[in-house]
């Protein structure tokens, strides 16, 4: 907070105005947007977190969801299936494409030893180019840009309007974020697979001894991570975007990575992180309008928050470790005295 304030002062703007805007109670419209955006960010962060939980740095969320969103929009636009079935098929396609693109990095890692950090960065660039190519050669003319064929009306979801219509609707598929969150949380914490994944993440050697096949785990977690990444833009696609084209929201993948780290890769932590990031982004608008402060300050705040929070985690972790040791010693000493 202090850092951000300093930056604001350096820029010659009013610190008071800045925090006023940031902490302003959001209007109904803002709340709808924050909810929708939180869902997208949450999915992105969840995708990143699955990899991080086993020390796999899937930096490629960006490319995975871009390619998946394009393909899903393309398939849904063809309307090969009626109404809701069309949605389901598109979701499956999105997951499959995201998984496949992430899987390339996974397979390269286990068979050729290519660091996933590098391969996913390269795959991001390649995904962007491939989508651009397909769009400009096979897309529909759309003003100065190109887009995929819009999805049929019967496959569009109206969403849920808690307030006035003009305040916007909460996308129906925000439910995907909830479902994915619960599923992944359950998968990681309650299942054998999740245990293997967490074990590999904290101590790969011990996991190997315990019978975990790390290579298989790497590929599977990349696939799951990619599948979730594939879902990122789906709430927006079926909630009003209707096609893949210029309004496509980029950089969610990178935001997701930051939020995953902020939330310590735990679904609940990620949830709060996603809401925080969505909130900050939503306030970027009034920031420029009301306080005349550049929206880039939001980015700085987000970065500083991530760094500050991880440093704080580390400090707390050290402190609790020391505390635990003291407690343990005290307990043992008491035992010794009473014996």
């Amino acid at each position: 907070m202090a850092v951000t304030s300093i930056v604001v002062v350096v820029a010659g703007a009013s610190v008071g105005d800045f925090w006023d805007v940031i902490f302003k109670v959001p209007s109904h419209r803002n709340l709808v947007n924050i909810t929708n955006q939180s869902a997208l960010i949450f999915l992105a962060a969840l995708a990143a977190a699955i990899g991080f939980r086993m020390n796999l740095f899937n930096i490629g969320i960006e490319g995975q969801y871009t390619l998946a969103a394009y393909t899903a929009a393309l398939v849904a636009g063809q309307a090969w299936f009626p109404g809701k079935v069309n949605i389901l098929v598109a979701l499956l396609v999105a997951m499959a494409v995201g998984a496949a693109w992430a899987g390339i990095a996974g397979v390269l890692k286990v068979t050729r030893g290519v660091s996933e950090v590098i391969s996913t960065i390269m795959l991001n660039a390649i995904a962007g180019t491939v989508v651009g190519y397909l769009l400009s050669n096979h897309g529909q003319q759309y003003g100065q840009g190109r887009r995929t064929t819009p999805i049929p009306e019967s496959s569009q979801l109206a969403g849920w309007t808690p307030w006035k219509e003009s305040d916007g609707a909460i996308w129906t598929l925000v439910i995907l974020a909830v479902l994915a969150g619960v599923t992944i949380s359950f998968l990681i914490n309650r299942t054998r697979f999740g245990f293997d994944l967490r074990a590999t993440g904290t101590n790969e050697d011990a996991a190997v001894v315990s019978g975990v096949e790390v290579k298989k785990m790497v590929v599977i977690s990349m696939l799951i991570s990619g599948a979730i990444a594939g879902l990122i833009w789906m709430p927006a696609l079926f909630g009003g975007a209707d096609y893949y084209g210029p309004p496509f929201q980029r950089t969610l993948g990178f935001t997701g990575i930051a939020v995953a780290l902020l939330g310590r890769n735990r679904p609940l932590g990620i949830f709060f992180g996603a809401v925080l990031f969505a909130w900050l982004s939503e306030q970027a608008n009034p920031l420029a309008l009301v306080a005349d402060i550049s929206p880039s300050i939001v980015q700085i705040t987000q970065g500083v928050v991530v760094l500050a929070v991880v440093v704080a985690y580390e400090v707390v972790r050290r402190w609790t470790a020391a505390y635990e040791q003291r407690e343990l010693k005290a307990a043992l000493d008491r035992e010794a005295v009473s014996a």
Partner: protein
Amino acid sequence: TDNKNDKTGSTANADVCKTAKGNGPKVGLAYDVGGRGDQSFNDSAYAGLKKAVGDLKATCVEGEATDGEAESARESRLKDMADAGMNPIIGVGFAYSDAVNAVAPNYPDISFGVIDGFDPDQTANKNVAYLGFAENEGSYLVGVAAALKSKAGHIGFVGGVHNDLIKKFEAGYVAGAKATKPDIKVDVKYIQESDLKGFGDPAGGQEAATAEFDNGADVVYHASGASGSGVFDAAVSAGDGKWAIGVDSDQYLTASDAQKPHILTSMLKRVDVATYDMIKSVADGSPLTSYQTYDLKKDGVGYAKSGGFVDDIASKIDEAATKIKSGEIKVPDKP
């Protein structure tokens, strides 16, 4: 240099919206990514706004898009302005087309304008004006200039991104050049195929233009946004007698001293004119609606004469302009 700033509106500090107190129209101006101070599109819109503040006693608020923002953020920006009572509200850039289409029906009493915009659906919006430009016509004129100035019979074009908009520039430029010298050779390069970073990559612009100069071209026209400064530098490095042509605004005025002697002319896209027109129409009580094409006839596009390098050929260029205006020449909009 005061004079210079007035023309380009690049001086961000003199924020007219902070000081404007008139009782004219209340303007909401929503910039694209980069916002005021981009020395291009957004600044040009700002120049129009500034003129309106002066001439029409307008007051204003501004908003700015961030990179990778949600569609809802764009809509929110427009709604915030509408709720604050702004009229007209102008979205600067094609990217606002969808947002305006979504927001405008909720505010039937407010006029919206979208620079470079279009109506994405079949339902016509009664309160929206789509302010387009005949970039191909302007490009035709600088094509003529390039062909006339080229000693080598070989010229070049550098586009930022290989999309339909920039292809329109290319088409006009090539047509103008070929019409002037049928056997002229035109090198065409795009910095990026689809990635918008091609508009913000001066290093790429420099590489592409250098390649064309090395290959024998002696005039290079760019339509690559901020990458263009790289094109100018390439002309400087290529040496005397090598020219670059600017785009959107009169780039001679914002170029460095070293670049100035190499900037032959610029294709002007008068976003300021369109912005001012939109505001004025609301002030006059007869808001613009539907598609408005700012072509040569409307003085929406043109070419710049700063530096005086085209003075000797101006008559021939103007001749072409007249023929376009009269319809005698039809400028293609696709390569």
